[in-house]
């Protein structure tokens, strides 16, 4: 498992494509910040935005793009092996493959979070108060549970349809769930971030566990097929 974590992280950190991707992401964050940060104001027209919430939602979208890109098998790191490659072509156990990938994803997420700290700290000091710890918690839980589904998608040989389905799922999650009555609207991650509410994360426990279970089933199936082929 440690080898998988090590190799995954190494390939992504060393990948120039990934550095470019994250550089562009930070540039987008920079633009959002520059547009929304309060500037010269008079008392009569004074307005301080909810800067932390604006930045948190922007960062959530960037991390969502990161999660989808990294987990679904179309990783920007050329040296990285997908879950399908590892299930078919390696001797690692199913548990090691899945949890190795998930832990590598989590560590990479944590490392990337450090790069948005200056934005968040400035937003806390210059905007109306926010709750950074709760935001981090929501971000980690939502991204981890979506990563489980992303890894499930990466186990298919045919890429385009599962990817389309995955993105449709995310759009449904972000747009249509906001119109649901309480408490079902708490499934919407933007609602959770806006209200700094963590009770809706229980839905993500279910989403994550179901994605993880399907990934396990799929990897075990792939492993069985590959061993059958080798035997033949």
């Amino acid at each position, binding site marked *: 498992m440690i080898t998988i974590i090590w190799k995954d992280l190494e390939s992504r*950190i060393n990948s*120039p494509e990934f550095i470019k991707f994250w*550089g562009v992401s930070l540039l987008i964050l920079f633009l959002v910040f520059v547009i929304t940060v309060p500037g010269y104001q008079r*008392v009569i027209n004074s307005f301080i935005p909810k800067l932390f919430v604006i930045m948190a939602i922007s960062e959530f979208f960037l991390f969502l793009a990161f999660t989808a890109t990294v987990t679904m098998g179309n990783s920007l790191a050329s040296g990285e092996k997908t879950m399908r490659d590892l299930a078919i072509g390696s001797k690692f156990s199913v548990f090691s493959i899945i949890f190795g990938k998930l832990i590598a994803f989590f560590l990479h997420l944590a490392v990337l979070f*450090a790069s948005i700290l*200056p934005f968040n*700290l400035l937003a806390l*000091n*210059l905007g109306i108060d926010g709750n950074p710890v709760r935001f981090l918690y929501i971000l980690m839980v939502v991204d981890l549970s979506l990563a489980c589904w992303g890894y499930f998608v990466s186990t298919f040989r045919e890429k385009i349809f599962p990817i389309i389905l995955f993105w449709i799922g995310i759009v449904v999650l972000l747009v249509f769930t906001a119109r649901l009555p309480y408490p079902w609207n708490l499934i919407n991650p933007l609602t959770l971030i806006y209200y700094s509410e963590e009770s809706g994360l229980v839905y993500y426990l279910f989403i994550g566990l179901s994605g993880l279970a399907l990934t396990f089933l799929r990897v075990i199936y792939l492993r069985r097929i590959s061993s059958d082929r080798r035997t033949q």
Partner: protein
Amino acid sequence: MKFRSYLILLLLLLLPSTVYPQVGVDIDIEFGFGGTVKVGRWNPITITVKTYSIPFKGRVEIEVKEGSVILGNITSVTLKSEVNLPAYSKGEYFFLVPLSDVRHPVKVSVFSQDGRLLKISNYEIKELDMRLPIMCIIDNWTLPYRGVGTRILSLESDRLLDKPVFILDPFDVVSLSPLSLYRLKGLLDRWTVLGGKVVTDPSVDIHRGREDTYPGEIDISPLVSDLIKEEDVPLPSKVLISLFLFLYVVILFVSLYYFKGHFLKRIALYLIICLLFSYLAFSLTSRVKEFSDVGIQINLLKIDKNLPYGRFYSGIALFSPYNKTVKLSYNPRNFVFWIGRREKGIAQTTIITGRDENLMEINLGPNKLGLLRGWGILDFDIRVYRDGDIIKVINNSHYILRDVYLLKSKGYLPLGDIKIGSNEFREKGLGLSRFDREDIKGKILSWFIDNGIILLGDKNYISGWIYTIPADIRFESSNIKSITLCLLEI
């Protein structure tokens, strides 16, 4: 034998009270002077706490509400005083509250140190008789002619010794002997500047009352409320923040893209850059909210011709774009401050009372304008003598008056500054200037003229400006502009 049995029984009954003396505290609340209060004035509330076998630590609180539920402009002010008494002792806690809004009861509460509510009383002030003028007779002096419909109150002079001047505010007239006058001279002189009448001759007709202090006739709140709207909010430069973040993104990208080494070293370099810029971002902006408030204090000081005091009115506007508590401390012996009635949406105002200093904490909600009003007496000894076209001013105060004008009905004569000591001005060679209503001094002057506070048609005034916050008033805040207009009628 029978008598002895009764005696033993009596001793046995008395034993518990000796062995187990009374535990706890007695709390006595006196509203006004024995329940006598006057609407439209500052009235004292005295809370007496008496301890027995154990010491008492806690606090007393008074909550005063004003405003209308329908208009949504209810303001609440809480006055607090810490109580720390040893066993078998008595402490007196003195508060001054304005009474003008009879719709809300005054709530008095006593709390123990751990926050337990020991006693609570709600005083329905609408039930009190408080419209008629009050005449105070000190040390049982002869009752003067008082007209019809005046309430009489008798007090000992000891009760007023060493007390704030506003303790006399409920009264319209004080009648006392020359000996008592001598004892209370400092207090009564200052009260006279507030409009009070002191009578030592019982044959004088003094039936006319005096004007109300609260809310009173001079309210500078509308002026400060207008002036603060033109002020800039102290925020850090958007350009500098943008440059800082741009530099961060560029340095991070370039160092990661061009650094050739082991991936762990790359992560270490990345984390060092991120944490360094995070530290800089936080430390450079951590005090933005603390210094975010803007304040304007406009004071009017009407200097008394005959006494070394000036009657002080203050209007303060405070604003913060963030949720911030602004603190104001003042000497309670000479000043009182309260929330302005035009205020809306202030979360809470607390006044922590002390013997030599009251600390007012105004919790400003985000983007809310807080208005305060102040009344008081300032030690200010300036005398003016006019001899033909020569005006002689002797300034024995601690202040230099800047940009002094001789105000006339069609304009003003600029006299320069009045320094500490003797000053002389010749009126003849000076040209009459027109009021400029554009700069801040012109705006303030014209507002006072337009609102009938300066009556130029009838009187001539010497006006001067003090640009520092008067002594005995202190803001624990960052951006307060204070301008005091001193007016001396000649």
